[in-house]
């Protein structure tokens, strides 16, 4: 397939030359696999979007007109943008700092601490937020209770109020910093040390080298990570839903969710909420392409690089401290709070050990529904990852080799591969409900509907992670293989795939985690015989008790941790460090 990438379409072969019809036909034949891929991906991602937007635009765009007439829309949009940009800033800064801190550690420490910044992603989002509530609720959060107990803070509330805009931005930014860390750290590792060493040899200090060499070379990484994180922040749902409502803070996704709680549901208006986010997504994709330009300008690793850096003691201490504090606050403390509540008869806000009990565990886990949901979650998540990984790699290859494909194809692939990210998960869930409940794909209520939905929403992640890996690899090794006589398939399986193994393993791990935690789509697709853990967790949050939420959260965290460890083992024991 990749041999066709090297051959220019006949129309470009000689400027000014008008290609003959047989030559055009030969060109089309060589491009047809990419055409098929593009059509297939476009169909897949448009499946949950077109019916939704059709709803918004039906009856003379009634949904959009209702949206513009909605009371308080201005404040909702302001909140959405403020929290989106705020979370982006916090996430990018934190994630980048963490990546540089881990990169600055000695190899021995890095081996054990490299993946600790992604620990917040291992905790399900509903549980993660609830854990933060247990810690930072102004009246009875454990941390606030301890702080007031020191005598430094008075009153019956605070000093931290997790329900305010500021702390929601901090929470969301902390949650998203793990994504940014993965992108930036992977980019740093793939960058190698040659250029930095060359700069240092020529007299540049570490700061100058960082600012003039390292950061510019990481521009594609920052742009990709920034776009992903901004879209996630704008479509953020769980944080604002659980933390924002108490003080009356609304964002687009929570207002949309409220609409879906009515019967009859105003589907037109609910779908219209997705329209601005789709527009933002398309604009971001266009801006991203303009900012990066030709991705091949950002050369990846050329000659073999041996990391011979010897970090100083102060650097090591500061790096380890920063990473340690982040992991403590973002992952360990919420987990401890969840564990404590899972052992409590109910959430009392008191750190009393006398009433602790294990009875919540058998009560919750003996439920056949929970056991079934564990099996279903694992099955559909693994299947979806196995399907979407090669699909993402094909899309990434198409985007990377855009100058060798017919011009519209890479653009369509790029846009289509990013579209599912722009839509709030709950809206995508409704879209799939429409699409899969009727002909021709009448698979609502089956595991296949989950697999199809999961594959679609994971396309952006599968593509971006693998594209970042391919970009960092650069074309030198690929071209060297081709020049040495290696065919496209041989080059792919013997050069690209082995070099991408750690990136593939990382993306498999991340996607498995995301799918185990996926909630918006799952909530609408579940049926009496097919349910997943994330929805079971939400059932407990909405209609059960916090201790039961905590039990399921602990179990889900253990499952995802095992999945991440398995993927890392497959990718190599130093998957995050090695190329």
């Amino acid at each position: 397939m990749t041999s066709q990438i090297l051959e220019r379409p006949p129309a470009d072969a000689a400027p000014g030359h008008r290609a003959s019809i047989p030559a055009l036909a030969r060109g089309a034949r060589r491009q047809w696999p990419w055409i098929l891929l593009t059509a297939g991906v476009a169909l897949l991602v448009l499946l949950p979007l077109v019916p939704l937007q059709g709803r918004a635009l039906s009856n003379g765009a009634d949904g959009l007109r209702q949206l513009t007439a909605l009371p308080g829309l201005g404040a909702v949009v302001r909140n959405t943008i403020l929290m989106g940009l705020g979370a982006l800033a916090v996430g990018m800064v934190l994630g980048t700092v963490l990546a540089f801190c881990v990169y600055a550690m000695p190899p021995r420490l890095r081996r054990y601490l490299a993946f600790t910044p992604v620990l917040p992603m291992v905790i399900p989002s509903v549980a993660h937020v609830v854990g933060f509530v247990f810690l930072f609720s102004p009246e009875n959060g454990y941390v606030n209770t301890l702080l007031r107990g020191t005598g430094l803070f008075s009153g019956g509330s605070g000093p931290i109020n997790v329900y305010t805009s500021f702390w929601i931005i901090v929470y969301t930014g902390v949650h998203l910093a793990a994504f940014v860390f993965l992108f930036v750290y992977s980019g740093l590792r793939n960058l190698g040390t040659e250029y930095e060493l060359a700069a240092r040899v020529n007299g540049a200090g570490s700061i100058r080298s960082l600012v003039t060499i390292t950061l510019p070379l990481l521009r594609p990484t920052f742009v990709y990570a920034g776009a992903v994180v901004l879209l996630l922040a704008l479509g953020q749902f769980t944080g604002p839903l659980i933390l924002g409502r108490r003080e009356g803070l609304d964002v687009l996704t929570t207002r949309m969710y409220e609409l879906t709680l009515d019967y009859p549901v105003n589907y037109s208006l609910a779908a219209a909420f997705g329209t601005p986010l789709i527009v933002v997504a398309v604009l971001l994709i266009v801006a991203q392409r303009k900012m990066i330009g030709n991705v091949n300008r950002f050369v990846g690793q050329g000659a073999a690089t041996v990391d011979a850096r010897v970090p100083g003691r102060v650097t090591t201490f500061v790096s380890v401290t920063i990473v340690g504090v982040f992991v403590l606050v973002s992952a360990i403390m919420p987990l401890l709070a969840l564990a404590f509540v899972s052992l409590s008869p109910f959430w009392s806000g008191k750190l009393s050990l006398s009433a602790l009990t294990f009875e919540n565990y058998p009560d919750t886990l003996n439920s056949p529904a929970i056991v079934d949901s564990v099996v279903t979650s694992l099955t559909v998540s693994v299947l979806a990852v196995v399907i979407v990984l090669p699909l993402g790699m094909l899309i990434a290859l198409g985007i990377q080799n855009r100058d060798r494909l017919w011009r519209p194809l890479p653009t369509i692939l790029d846009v289509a591969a990013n579209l599912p990210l722009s839509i709030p998960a709950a809206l995508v869930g409704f879209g799939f409900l429409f699409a899969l409940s009727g002909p021709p794909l009448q698979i609502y209520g089956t595991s296949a509907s989950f697999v199809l939905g999961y594959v679609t929403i994971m396309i952006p992640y599968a593509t971006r992670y693998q594209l970042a890996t391919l970009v960092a690899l650069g074309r030198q090794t690929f071209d060297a293989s081709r020049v040495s006589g290696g065919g496209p398939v041989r080059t792919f399986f013997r050069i690209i795939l082995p070099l991408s193994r750690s990136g593939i393993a990382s993306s498999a791990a991340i996607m498995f985690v995301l799918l185990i935690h996926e909630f918006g789509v799952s909530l609408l697709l579940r049926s009496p015989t097919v349910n997943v853990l994330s929805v079971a967790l939400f059932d407990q949050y909405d209609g059960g008790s916090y201790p039961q939420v905590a039990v399921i959260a602990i179990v889900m965290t253990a499952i995802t941790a095992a999945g991440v460890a398995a993927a890392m083992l497959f990718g190599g024991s130093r998957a995050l460090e090695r190329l």
Partner: protein
Amino acid sequence: MRLRRATRLLFAALGLAGLLTTAACGPGAGSTPDSSDQSWGAVQQRANAQGVVRWYSVAPPDQNDRLVKAFNEKYPRIRVDVTRGASELPTRVNAELQSGAEGADVFMYASTQWYADHRDALLPVDSPAGAAWPADQWAATGSAPVTAVQPFGMIVWNTEAFPQGFQTWQDLLRPDVRGKLGMRSVVNNVNAGLFDFLTRTQGEGYLRQLATQNPKFYTSNVTLVQAVASGEISVGESATPSAIKDLQSKGAPLAYSVKDVYAIPYSTAVLKKTHRPDAARVFLDFLMSKEGQEALNGDGYSGSVLPGVQGTLDTTGMAVLDESKFPPDVIQHWDAQFRSIFGTVG
């Protein structure tokens, strides 16, 4: 000679066993009645053969469990698969009706309007308990009875914070309540009904006075009640007895009042698309019987429209939601009122 006799005896024994087996398995000997036989005994026999009923329910888990347990004491051969949900249930059921997908056999939801709108999709009730059901307590006459009257607007408080408790809705305006009150945030037909109830019974300015108490907002009754139990807030204006009783049983310092309550009706029906019509009919019949009503609503969990059911809440003083008075434009009006009075921080 002996061998020949033994062989003959063996064949005779085998032949007799075969005859007896054929007699036992043949028609008319313990077989399931044909579907044309609509006598209640035949329905029950077919229900046992069908062996399972899938029930989508909006009722709290405790109440679901009580009903299933009581049902299985009478019908041990019919398994009940409960899917508990909330506002997403009608969407799922509608999708199942459209696609014919396997799913709900019996659907219980906090609405009367859905059943009126989907009358043609419901199986008519033809059972002993159905014949005795009050004539004016149907969401869709003859198909969807109102099977519970669930308190929604009621006061629940933390007894450690407010040992003196609350008697009336006016008590929520006390100065010591400021900053400690929790309210539901979602303005759907149910919540719009609650605001309308409070405005009608407590006066036009009541909601604005409530807003001066700096209330905190929660997306569900369960989270609101848990917040009251934890002390995050200390009093709430919306709850269900089920959520409160569950926490009380674990030692939470909660108390509540069922005076001057606003309630919502739970309606139930068998869906025509069901693959197990007899099991579904038997389940609904049990739910409509006094036994079923006591299981679902007894011990103070909710009210029953059937007179004389032990342990249920007195519904005579309750204000019950009339959905027909809250179409989408009225809900939008209350949504705008809510945001105007309680604000959306920008």
